[in-house]
């Protein structure tokens, strides 16, 4: 089965000279259809940078980023935007819903931006909301929803239009643990339905939902395994050096 996301020797350096920060230093890994990969690591290890590069929001200093076979690095701005509308779904820690738009409008956003007729886009958005179980809140504004509900809307927005790559950056960070579990269950279900998922988290519990865990430290992948004793790696980072 071909990879939905493939990173090849990705470097990312912020700034120049003395002040240069090497956020990523030669990261390579792939995520296949039906697979959920957790990215773990301490704060500042480059997890978010990795995800923004995978989503085409940021460009690597060097390396290749392939999504469904096309290299994001060589695409134009507009083509990358198109990829985000049609292939890549992004879920943030801060939900990032647009407060001026209702839930259903937020979900319909990528479809509408893609030029789908607004009626069709809304119908698809309702279906996506149905999937995450909050179709009854479709016409509410984000400010009138709880955090968990907002994150469900964000997930619906990430999956609407049959997008096959879901990137989630600490999606449960602002939620209580019970609500967080439900959000992860939704992402897992989506991957079981054929999508490829990348989940950034620093909680070992959450990594249990993943098929595989990628450990990052100082911008380098220090372990990539499906069965490694996650808890030990996290508890004793120094031992793995």
């Amino acid at each position, binding site marked *: 089965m071909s990879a939905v996301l493939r990173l090849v020797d990705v470097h990312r350096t912020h700034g120049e000279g003395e002040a240069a920060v090497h956020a990523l230093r030669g990261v390579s890994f792939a995520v296949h259809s039906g697979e959920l990969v957790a990215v773990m690591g301490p704060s500042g290890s480059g997890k978010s940078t990795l995800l923004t590069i995978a989503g085409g929001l940021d460009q690597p200093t060097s390396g290749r980023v392939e999504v469904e076979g096309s290299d994001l690095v060589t695409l134009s701005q507009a083509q990358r935007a198109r990829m985000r509308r049609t292939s890549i779904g992004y879920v943030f820690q801060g939900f990032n819903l647009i407060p001026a*738009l209702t839930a259903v409008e937020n979900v319909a956003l990528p479809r509408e931006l893609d030029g789908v007729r607004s009626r069709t886009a809304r119908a698809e958005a309702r279906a996506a909301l149905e999937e995450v179980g909050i179709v009854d809140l479709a016409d509410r504004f984000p400010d009138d929803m709880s955090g968990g509900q907002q994150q469900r809307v964000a997930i619906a927005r990430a999956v609407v239009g049959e997008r096959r790559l879901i990137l989630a950056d600490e999606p449960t960070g602002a939620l209580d643990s019970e609500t967080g579990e439900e959000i992860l269950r939704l992402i897992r279900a989506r991957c079981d339905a054929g999508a490829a998922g990348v989940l950034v988290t620093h909680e070992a519990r959450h990594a249990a939902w993943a098929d595989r865990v990628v450990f990052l430290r100082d911008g380098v992948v220090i372990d990539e395994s499906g069965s490694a004793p996650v808890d030990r790696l996290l508890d004793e980072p120094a031992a793995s050096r």
Partner: protein
Amino acid sequence: MSGRLTSWRLALRLARRDARRSWVRSGLVLVLIALPVLAVTAAATLYETHQMTGSEGVDRRLGTAAAKVYTYRHAADVAQTADPETGGASWATRRRATPPTERQVLDTLGGERRAVPIATGYLRYRTAEGMGDAQSVATDFDDPLTAGIATLSSGHWPESDDEVVVSQALLDRDPGEQLTLRGGTKLDIVGTAESTSYRDTAFVFARPGVLPTTGSSGDQAWLVAGGPVVWQQVRQLNDLGAFVVSRAVLADPPSASQLDPDMQYSDAGIDSAELTILVLIVVMVLIEVVLLAGPAFAVGARQQTRTLALIAAAGGTPRQARRVILASGVVLGAAGAVLGVVLGIAAARALQPLVQHFDVQRFGPFDVPWLPLGGVAAFGLVSALLAAVVPAFIASRQNVVAVLGGRRGDTRASRRSPLIGLVLVGVAVALAALGVRRASGMGGGGEVPIALSAVVAVLGMILLAPVAVVALARLAGRLPLPLRFAARDAARHRTRTVPAVAAVAATVAGVVALGISITSDEAENRETYTPRLAMGQASVTDYAQKADWPAYLAAAREVAPESGPTLIRGIPSGGRTYVDFRARFVGQPRSMLSSWGGELATSVVVARDPADVDALGLDAEAAGRARRALAAGQPVVFADRAVPDGPARLTVKQQAPRERRMTTLGQVQVDAVAVPVAQAYAPVQAVLPTSVARRLHAPVADVGVLVPGGLSSAQQQDLSEKVAAISSRAEVYVERGYQADSAVVIIKLILAGLGAVLMLGGTLTATFLALSDAKPDLATLAAVGARPRTRRGVAGGYALVVGLVGSVLGALIGAIPGLAITYPLTDRSGYFSGPVPDGLATHYIDIPWLMIAGVVLGLPLLTALVMAAAARSRLPMVARLQ
């Protein structure tokens, strides 16, 4: 006390830091505050410089003398203000009055004094083309007392009574070697000199007694040397019948109570109606500035909400939170006011030569009116403070939990304020109606309630603007994404949006109100325009009894032989012998016309040819009827209403001077034609065929020259100068139909320009602030795959929402005073003694639809396009991805 001070100090420090950190937003506020302050400062400084106040420019009028004393031949009971020439003076005319002589004046003043006679006035002189006008000053220019009145630029001052010195402007009119005055006096030109008071003006300078004196400064005048002439002495001379311009009194004017009771009113300055309107204008400008600057403070307040919430969480009171925002008003207001005043004075200095270029009166010394400028600066500071008040209150009432929880957007709208807004608009309509009522009543003076209604309507509109913004957001569901986002976001951030919308609305209201009043005024002028001649024809008229008509005719034939000038004849009116003509249709009331006449030196034209009616400027239908009647040998009688044709009795009487009674010259009864005239205005009473005039034994003479073929502009110029050489009373007129005043066109252009600039300003502010506020949302849009140009769409959508809501609201609000003001402006009821005649409008309303459409639809669309084009197309990418 010191606690409060400390708290302000903290607030001011935070404000200064904030102003420096978000310098673009601060710069925006600074410009908004400074610009009006700058404009008013520059205007006030230029005005003050232009104005000769107090003892400024006194040398130009008095030379080195202590005073100028002047008398009128028949003036008695003289009273004057400090400056009788510009400030006001009064006197009674008595044949027996004996004004003081030079000797009496000097004796009254006492001390070591001498006097030099000076005479100022106007005269006419021969130019290459005909006659020209000049001002004249006759005095002894070699006397040091007159130094400073004029400056010699070449030659020498007159040394004898047949020498003169003239100004360059007069020389440019080519008077020849000698100056030939009207009446034939020839004077040698021995030099050139310029008046120190007026530039680019024709002047003649001569020795005393050489030139005629007609002017405002007396039949006799002297410059008096010696010690200061004080107010006490001025009063003494007034009692003798003389007027005094005293250097000492101008420098130290008497208080109002020292003036003669007759004179005390004249220094009252502007009346209360003007004051009211002035205050209203200031209030409107204040509102506009506050509205424009308001959004910037609102955004500033929001960007500081975290700080404020933290202050609250740390135990700060709402008042302390409020102070932080108000302090930024103080900082930016003070900076803007000082900047505006400084730049305004600089601008006035730079503009002074340019403005002088448009005015023949020489400006005084550069003069900064510091006291009023203090007021202007205070205005800037106050407007910034007011603009910060609402955001400050809202910020201080923020829900701390919501802010720290990351929720954005304003608290819910008040339900009460829209109701107050509606009430205010209702009051405005009532005030406008009151103004309309007053305008058509006798006393007049509907302008003040209408101006008040404008301000009240704008205040009401500000309270209604949130409703309009929220309503649009409700309807936005079906709109394309950028517009929907803009409309909803605008409604969520009302503290930022509403002032901007209101600023646009206030601008549009002003433009629409002024636009309606100007076009209605113009409509009145156009509709009530009475042509003096048939379109395209020309005439020469002269009211004098002994006008030299053959000479006028010869001049016209010389200038425009192809246009076929002819003489118009009539029964001469005026003159020493009074001739009275009456026409009465049998069985009709006596009065047929409420008014007639004006242009020709007759009230009855005697037509040798039916085409002579062209000289009357009738409309086509009336002219046709008149021609047919004259061709049939019937007299034409004008009426201001429909009167059936039929037999009429015509009578001519005359009254010679010193005769007590009128004598009837002739009376006939003939079939006559009644011609109703438009606008209730008839050029003459009647047009008689020659045969009827002869039967009436009426005196018939030439009364005008008609040029049926008309005159070109060049021909008009030539003929004007030619007839001016024959008589100063002759007038050449060419009928070109109604000509819109070029000032009106310019005012309209300025209005449109001002409207566009203010609308662009309001929209730009709001959009710019909205975009910076919406950065996280734009980042989200980018993350879900929005094309980069979506940002342009959002920018354009924002501009469109603010512009459109504002302009529609403004047009509705502006129509209230705009429609009302047309009543006092174009009221016609005062023109007629009785009720307004049939078929005439009592007032005119003309709505400039094209201009309104341009302002309401065109401008917002244009600004939206400009905004979309100018916006950066790059979406912020990772602004919120941590």
